[in-house]
């Protein structure tokens, strides 16, 4: 019988102990003695969140296809267990073999959002691995980071031995081969291994680079300390989505994951080029997975998991070429015996409304638009190609089809935003409500319509045209939300409108981490050592602790938030060759100032630089 690492006494004293026992359906069992390399994959948040992430399942599948590698998993222990492990000095362990991670060869941590940064340190600390790369010895695992946050890895650079820039499918084999051959040598030396690893495409070894700063605090030089270490690190891209690894037997958790369903990744990248959107830039070019392959995957995944729901994953499902065929296949062939289909991020038109009416209860569901900005001027600035006609036309079709709930997503704090732009948000919502009362005769109405606006505060991200933009202090964000709220109350149909806005504290911190440099790492370390972790969770986030940490480390928050960057400023992430060139981003930044829109990749190539990857939409 399987033995667990934690005692029965501990497991019975913590919440949801099933998070820590492993043994889930489709989890991989291997004899660790039979492999050459033990890898532990970590999502630094609680189990239910981490288990919902497709990327880890892809890499878990891919790595475990190698007979000489055993990839296991670990997630952040919830604070109740964290405290017990610290108190009793219990090391963090992997779910599959229930063995301490400190005995593994490698620990890979995926970085999906900035607010998990303190949890990186939590995982290292509980694993009893030194927090800083410079303090690690030959016997410590190699700590590797990956995911979208590594497009500016500098605020966390000192915590990692390697940061993998790009899609994981391409370079892990080379890294594993190198490690296995180096580790078997009698004179294995961690530093020599890392230096060799830095020559594998996509791998950034932060300890091999030195940064110097100008007097104003911006970067002067960013250079490798040895000649054989590359000056730039090239983002890794999967060229053929039809042959790359995909988990057709994904793990089925016991504890209900946030996303408890089968997932079909239909494409990577997006053709749209919205100027605020990092995903729209860093996953270029748009690459579709073929309809034939997806059909097989859907059947296999449903059969191997027993999931009762299947969902499509992509940045913009409506842009997938064969979407009608795929959706009809799912409805006709998969959606029987109680299997549901969930369709995220669809553009609202006749086709999507027809599909939605087949798979959802119209009375309970809502239609969703993401105009991101209220005024057409602002939508031109951000290059969101959605017009007021698109929105009203879609909403009218939905109202005729029987829907009476509409959700609208916006951002506040976008570059050049004026009070008119803010007021345009509730005005647009009011217009939609008015349209409902015009369109649907009184006797056919199912009560009032319900138009819900949500705003988040805009955070400029690296490798976007808005990477030069300034941010604002907390009070300014709240002031803007108040303008929206007050204007909503003045609207004729205000009783049909609802408004929700996000917390502003987290926005400010997220902004600092997103575009921070190595100096910010001291602050993160200080904050963790003074009790901050699980910052992505409202109940554990404490802004005062962070303000104290910045003060204690002598790091000025305003330097990162309040400054619009000079067009030629050297950014901490400039050493990454992302495919999308800085020249293209500069051009897009200037065009946004002129309120000029740029066409999507299907209509016209705009020369962003990603054509050199020679795949996907760029071949058309």
């Amino acid at each position, binding site marked *: *019988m*399987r033995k*667990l690492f934690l005692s*029965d*006494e501990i*497991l*019975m004293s913590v919440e*949801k*102990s*099933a998070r820590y*026992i*492993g*043994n*889930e*359906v489709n989890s991989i069992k291997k004899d660790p003695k039979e492999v050459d390399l033990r890898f532990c994959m970590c999502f630094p948040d609680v189990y239910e969140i981490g288990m919902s992430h497709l990327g880890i399942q892809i890499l878990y599948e891919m790595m475990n296809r190698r007979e000489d590698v055993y990839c296991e998993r670990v997630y952040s222990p919830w604070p109740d267990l964290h405290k017990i492990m610290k108190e009793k000095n219990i090391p963090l362990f992997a779910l599959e073999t229930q063995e301490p991670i400190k005995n593994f060869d490698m620990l890979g941590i995926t970085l999906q959002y900035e607010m998990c940064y303190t949890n990186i340190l939590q995982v290292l600390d509980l694993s009893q691995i030194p927090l800083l790369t410079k303090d690690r010895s030959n016997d410590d695992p190699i700590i590797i980071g990956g995911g979208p946050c590594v497009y500016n890895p500098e605020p966390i650079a000192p915590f990692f031995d390697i940061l993998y820039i790009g899609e994981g499918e391409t370079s892990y084999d080379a890294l594993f081969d190198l490690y296995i051959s180096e580790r078997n040598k009698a004179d294995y030396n961690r530093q020599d291994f890392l230096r060799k690893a830095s020559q594998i495409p996509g791998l950034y070894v932060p300890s091999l680079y030195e940064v110097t700063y100008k007097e104003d605090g911006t970067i002067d030089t960013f250079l490798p300390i040895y000649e054989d270490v590359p000056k730039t690190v090239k983002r890794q891209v999967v060229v053929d989505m039809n042959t790359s690894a995909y988990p057709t037997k994904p793990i*089925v958790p*016991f*504890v*209900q994951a946030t996303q*408890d369903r089968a997932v079909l990744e239909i494409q990577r990248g997006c053709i749209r080029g919205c100027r605020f959107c990092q995903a729209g830039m860093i996953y270029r070019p748009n690459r579709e997975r073929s309809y034939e392959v997806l059909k097989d995957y859907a059947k296999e995944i*449903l*059969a*191997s*998991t*027993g*999931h*009762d729901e299947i969902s499509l994953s992509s940045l913009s499902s409506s842009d997938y070429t064969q979407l009608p065929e795929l959706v009809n296949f799912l409805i006709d062939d998969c959606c029987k*015996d*109680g299997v*549901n289909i969930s369709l995220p991020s669809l553009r609202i038109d006749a086709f999507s409304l027809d599909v939605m009416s087949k*798979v*959802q*209860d119209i009375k*309970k569901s809502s239609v969703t638009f993401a105009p991101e900005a209220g005024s057409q001027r602002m939508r031109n600035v951000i290059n969101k190609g959605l017009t007021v006609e698109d929105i009203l036309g879609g909403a009218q079709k939905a109202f005729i089809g029987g829907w009476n709930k509409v959700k609208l997503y916006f951002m506040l704090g976008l570059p050049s935003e004026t009070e008119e732009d803010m007021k345009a948000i509730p005005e647009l919502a009011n217009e939609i409500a008015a349209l409902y009362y015009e369109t649907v005769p009184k006797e056919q109405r199912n009560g009032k319509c319900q138009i819900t606006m949500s705003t988040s505060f805009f955070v400029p991200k690296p490798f976007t045209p808005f990477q030069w933009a300034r941010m604002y202090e907390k009070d300014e964000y709240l002031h803007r939300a108040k303008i929206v709220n007050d204007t909503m109350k003045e609207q004729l149909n205000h009783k049909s409108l609802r408004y929700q806005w996000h917390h502003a504290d987290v926005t400010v911190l997220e902004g600092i981490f997103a575009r921070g440099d190595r100096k910010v790492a001291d602050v993160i370390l200080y904050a963790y050592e003074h009790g901050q972790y699980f910052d992505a969770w409202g109940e554990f986030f404490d802004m005062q602790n962070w303000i104290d940490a910045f003060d204690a480390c002598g790091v000025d928050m305003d330097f990162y938030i309040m400054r619009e960057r000079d067009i030629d400023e050297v950014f901490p992430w400039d050493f990454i060759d992302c495919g999308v060139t800085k020249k293209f981003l500069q051009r897009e930044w200037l065009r946004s100032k002129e309120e000029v829109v740029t066409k999507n990749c299907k209509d016209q190539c705009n020369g962003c630089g990603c054509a050199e990857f020679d795949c996907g939409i760029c071949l058309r």
Partner: protein
Amino acid sequence: MKIRLRFSKFGTMKYIGHLDMLRYFQKAFRRAKVPMKYSEGFNPHPIMSFASPLGVGVTSEGEYMDIETKVDVDLDAMISDLNKEMVEGTNVLSAKVLDDHTKKAMAAVSCAKYVVFLKKNSQVLSEVDLEKATREFYDNQNEIVVLKKTKKGEKEVDIKPYIFMFEGTRFQNASFLKDLCVDIKDEEFCCNDDDPVFLLQVSTGSNDNIKPELVMKAFYEYLQLEEEAVIAIHRVELYQGEKNQFESLGV
């Protein structure tokens, strides 16, 4: 076809909560291609219900679930298909077809039998004559009053009418352990020859649900001994019917 399944839950699966078990079985039925009958509507769910939720940390070899299939199935083939889709720690043990008039297990269940083990190396009861003490506690007392938590706070309740059997003995003399399906030697509560072990039968179901922990607490209080923190509980069987005429829910 209406079917009642009996299954076991042991090892690491004892940490899986009731709702997670429900989802686990729903998915296992789909993987095993059992032609379940589904409810109507936009979110159809398979028709299935457990007899009695099992607490987290409790193992069992007497779990029951009623299901309904769209078409008639071969029970032995279904059991074998299901067990291929189960992870270590859950096993479908048997199944029987129910006629249309059979009360649902959830409504019928009235009593449960448990074995209670103490944690390894427990000393508190080492000097106690268990056979005698349990007899005195259960047979000689007219009422067994405990403080029970309710929605409004705590209140005194006499639980004696809801306890149908309470025996204590030493491991080496516990003949009832020989009949258990689950190999208790594998479990963490594995006992030495002279460690205490208890057999209980208590009221179970939507009314008057008595947990074995509550009886043990009353027992320690009766002996004026300090209660031990960790005990392991194993559910042996579920019954329907009235006192003195209990019959197994299963096959």
